[in-house]
């Protein structure tokens, strides 16, 4: 991706001359290249998992989620107290929109929404200056006047963008989403430079409690391809969170299918968000991943 106008072929990925993240997204494993080369980390991502996050009946445990979020945010910001950590993210004068996702088979858990809202209020922001919304954000007074956004949604495969993660969650900030469908949603990163959202996102939470790691076509959801990973990815860089999430998906798909099974279509919007739209870091070599909690089946 040295030259944005250059034709990028499959061979470029195989040579390892372009982004390793995208190569993995396509199920291409460059010969002799290690993703985790020793380069200085630039952005921090926290992965926290807890086997009690979901109970035997599939219900999300709100108390556990609150603890996971607190531990992740304090680790992310090197603070001991969660409220002190949140004070680094938002201040009492902020108007805060919590951008969730309502896709019915796999919505943002209410328990997570409330855990975020609680900490935002703990900072001293009155409830009337906080709202949670997804599809109504363009008509929501809080979101239209927001000085801070918190982005929280589940990670899942998606029939037209490869995966739906942090980056894609801001599609509701435009009135005509099809404008961003070109080349399999390659330019979703541009959403993050829209005046309504640019520079406002203080925290991203990518939910991997029971993610969907495979699907085809528009009738995409199939519970067969979900698994209880019981994790949250937390960070300030949406591209880094999506890149790490994508890597977990690739590992899961390899484990489940027993062979390289590229995402269809490739989630190249994650790389373009970095290289073209400059809204974060997609290169795993430049991401410091802090892993907390339950390690069994962590896949990364």
């Amino acid at each position, binding site marked *: 991706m040295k030259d944005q106008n250059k034709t990028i072929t499959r061979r470029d990925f195989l040579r390892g001359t372009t982004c390793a993240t995208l190569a993995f997204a396509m199920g291409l494993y460059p*010969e002799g290249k290690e993703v985790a080369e020793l380069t200085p980390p630039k952005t921090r991502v926290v992965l926290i998992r807890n086997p009690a996050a979901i109970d035997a009946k599939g219900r999300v445990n709100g108390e556990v989620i609150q603890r996971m979020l607190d531990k992740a945010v304090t680790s992310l910001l090197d603070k001991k107290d969660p409220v002190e950590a949140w004070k680094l993210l938002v201040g009492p004068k902020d108007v805060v929109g919590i951008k969730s996702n309502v896709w019915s088979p796999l919505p943002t858990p209410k328990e997570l929404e409330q855990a975020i809202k609680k900490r935002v209020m703990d900072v001293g922001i009155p409830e009337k200056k906080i709202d949670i919304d997804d599809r109504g954000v363009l008509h929501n007074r809080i979101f239209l006047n927001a000085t801070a956004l918190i982005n929280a949604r589940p990670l899942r495969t998606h029939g037209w963008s490869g995966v739906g993660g942090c980056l894609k969650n801001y599609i509701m900030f435009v009135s005509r989403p099809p404008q961003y469908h070109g080349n*399999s949603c390659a330019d979703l990163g541009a959403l993050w430079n829209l005046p309504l959202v640019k520079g406002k996102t203080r925290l991203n939470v990518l939910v991997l409690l029971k993610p969907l790691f495979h699907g085809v076509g528009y009738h995409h959801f199939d519970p067969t391809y979900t698994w209880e990973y019981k994790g949250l990815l937390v960070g300030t860089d949406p591209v880094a969170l999506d890149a790490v999430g994508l890597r977990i998906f690739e590992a899961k798909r390899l484990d489940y299918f027993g062979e390289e099974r590229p995402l269809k279509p490739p989630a190249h919007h994650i790389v373009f968000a970095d290289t073209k739209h400059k809204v974060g870091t997609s290169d795993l070599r430049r991401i410091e991943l802090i892993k907390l909690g339950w390690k069994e089946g962590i896949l990364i």
Partner: protein
Amino acid sequence: MAGLSLIRTFTAASLAATILTCATSEVHQETIDMRKLVPDQISGWKARDAAEVYDRQTIFDYIDGAGEIYLMYDFRKVMVFRLVKATEPTILLEIFDMGSPEDAYGIFSHAREGEEQGIGQGSEYRGGVLCFWKANFFVCITSERETPSSKKAVVDLARKIAENIPVSGAVPKLLDYLPEDGLLDKSVRYFHKHTSLNYHYFLSSENILGLGRHTEAVLARYEPGGRYLLLVRYQNEEEAKEALDGFFSAYIPEGKRSGAAQIDNGKWVAAKLEGALVVVVFDASTKADAQDLTKATQTKLSESSSRERTGL
């Protein structure tokens, strides 16, 4: 996804779907009223309200991003019915008019993974969704949640609709040219555009094979080794030759002379012109594997041409 907004209420005038089917040398043209494909009731489920109709302009109001998948084909419109029954989950029925039997097959092949269910001209039941194609139509049926009775109703409804479609359509002719030996049936994808090729097998950010509405393409995998065979039919030989030259230049310039090249992962790529067709093999373990598949395709092409000449 479903039911975000009602774009157009179903009207009798909007129901006509023109079907062109070819039977031997005779062309039949029939008009099918899509509403009449749906039975009045199935095991007590009845259509609630009027059907919703979405076309190429409004499809995104119904299924947002994934609407692009339909636009890669000659999609005309989709009619959405919601069937209800007291104490049972709602059944969602979608009937897509794909413009031609080839494209109805194409959209079915786009996502096919599951086992054949014996409904229509091709079907699968996956993740609680039953989809089939017949003639110009691609039909998907699902229940909000699955109960034993709703699952049975979904299958019965699919069978009834398939019966109500009075004609069958031809599968794409291009499929006849796929060698049978080693073919993984469910891997066959039929499409037209570069975006579809990249969806199934990322080749290049640019359209280096000159794919578009005017081209037909089929991609399939073969055992052993998981080789891919891509066949593209152009409007004429000149266009095919130009596309093949472009492919060699952009992807395997070192293979232009011999027609094959070993690429960076050690796998072989071979490409060949066959009249108005371009034949490409990807991911072959050896040069011989690649060339065997192109030769087998050549043989199939000769056999098909011979059959066409003799009218068999």
